[in-house]
């Protein structure tokens, strides 16, 4: 099956040039909250991807029959249903992570990326394009989370996915010289890291457009 140019663009655009976090600066709030460790960030990224993709498809299928006046309510109902399903699945199969993410799974409902994609894309495009758009935006959001969480967990607690990466013997407590950077555990540092990624992203893409 050959995908049309528009479909490809719907998927590839949000990954880089039109990234929801880097370019549209959406979804920053959860990016600060769940990126202290890599595992919750991964789970969060996947959950958001699934929810955006599915809600995009559902809304796209119903787009012709939704009355314009109450479309936000309809969108919210769809998103809320999906978020509840994901939340219940997480509680059933990945209880620890669900506890770590606590309210942030529920707060996916208010994630600006979701409503943004539904309003801006799914309401006016066919289901296949909407699916691709949802996946693209979900992954675009997820990779930022993963990069930020990677740096924060590695430098902030010396671990990755819970496994100790920095050798124990390096630490001051064990006679070494190294110390974890407590600043990395603070939300402020996540903001600075996102800023750095935006910085790098802009300087690379500005060169391309020139």
């Amino acid at each position: 099956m050959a995908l049309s140019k528009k479909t490809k663009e719907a998927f590839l655009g949000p990954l880089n040039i039109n990234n929801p976090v880097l370019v549209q600066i959406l979804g920053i709030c959860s990016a600060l909250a769940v990126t202290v460790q890599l595992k919750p960030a991964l789970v969060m990224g996947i959950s958001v991807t699934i929810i955006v993709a599915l809600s995009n498809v559902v809304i796209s299928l119903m787009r012709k029959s939704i009355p314009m006046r109450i479309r936000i309510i309809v969108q919210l109902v769809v998103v809320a249903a999906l978020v509840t399903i994901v939340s219940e699945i997480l509680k059933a199969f990945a209880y620890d992570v669900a506890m770590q993410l606590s309210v942030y799974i529920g707060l996916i409902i208010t994630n600006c990326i979701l409503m943004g994609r539904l309003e801006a894309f799914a309401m006016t495009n066919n289901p296949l394009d909407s699916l691709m758009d949802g996946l693209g935006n979900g992954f675009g959001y997820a990779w930022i989370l993963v990069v930020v969480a990677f740096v924060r967990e590695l430098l902030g607690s010396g671990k990755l996915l819970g496994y100790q990466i920095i050798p124990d013997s390096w630490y001051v407590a064990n006679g070494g010289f190294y110390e974890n950077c407590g600043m990395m555990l603070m939300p402020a540092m996540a903001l600075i890291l996102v800023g750095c990624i935006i910085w790098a992203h802009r300087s690379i893409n500005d060169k391309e457009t020139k």
Partner: protein
Amino acid sequence: MEKFYNLWKKFGKNFEEGGKWQKLSSFYDAFDTFLFTPQTTAKRVGAQIHDGGDSKRTMILVVLALVPCALFGMFNVGYQHLLATGQLAGGMTAALWWKAFGFGLLAVLPYYIVSYLVGLGIEFVVAQIKKEEVAEGFLVTGFIIPLIVPINTPLWMVAIATAFAVIFAKEVFGGTGYNIFNVALIARAFLFFAYPTHMTGDNVFVRTGSTWGWDSDMTAVDGFSGATPLGQLATTADANLMPVDFWTMFNGLIPGSIGETCGWAILLGACLLLCTGVASWKTMVAILGTASLTAWLFNACGPETAVANYPWYMHLVSGGLLFGAVFMATDPVTSARTECGKWIYGALIGFMVIVIRVLNPGYPEGMMLAILLGNAFAPLIDWCVVRVNINKRMKRA
């Protein structure tokens, strides 16, 4: 300024051909360009700026003003080390005096090397990328950073903090003169939040171990505590504790960050800054005045804790208050710029520093956070002062 310059020229006669110190003339030349170039001044007509200053001259003056603090800090590092290892039991001798200074010099010098290497390195790279001149801004920052860290901070942490501060507090805002927060304080704040165990507590302010292998056979004497006076106040249960008396505190032979302990060294620097007009006396007076007032209020009707009962004049000479008030809050870039704004800005800092000290048991010293808060509010204060002035004049018209 003219008086200074005439004195200087007279002094310079010694360095000319046939003068007393002819061989040292290159030193004279160096200082001549540092301190008195450019020498162009406006004509003395009406209300004009008479002196042609530039940022390099300002920076060098601040560095000169910091020298007493740095020298005393070095001595104090060695002195505290000798005290902690029990070498002063037999009293102070000339040999021990020199040992203290030498030990301190060797201990502090690496901080200067690291701070300048990292900071200037980044400045050069950024200047290259932006294709701009290398700005002098780091001269002062690099000189202050070693003075406001505890002597046991690992060097690599200082390197990271310096890099963080220069990049995220200065270069991203546009470089020297555009920063919102005091760069040296951001370096300290980074250390404070990133590596809290190395910035507070009883073990960081006095070097009990060796420096470059010197005194490696020495250990701290029994019952030694390296807590700073403010640190003792924050943890004590005795509501009337007075760790040291006023003059000991003012003389500065106490544990603390390297360059901030000595009152008279700081006041010496303050004199130079005020005489040359580099720093604003309004900011200093406002900080010290408000801090004493706030501390006095806590004395009179505060909670029954040791810090709240700590006399107001002791608060003034404790911790980094004097150092911050003289060298950091007055930074012309990050402080308020309107004359009236300087009073408000100083008052805010003076108030906050005592409030943080007294009411927050987690932070024995509040000067760093108070100044950073003041920095954040400085533009708003300026804006309000300017608006008020405009409105006043509108009404008059």
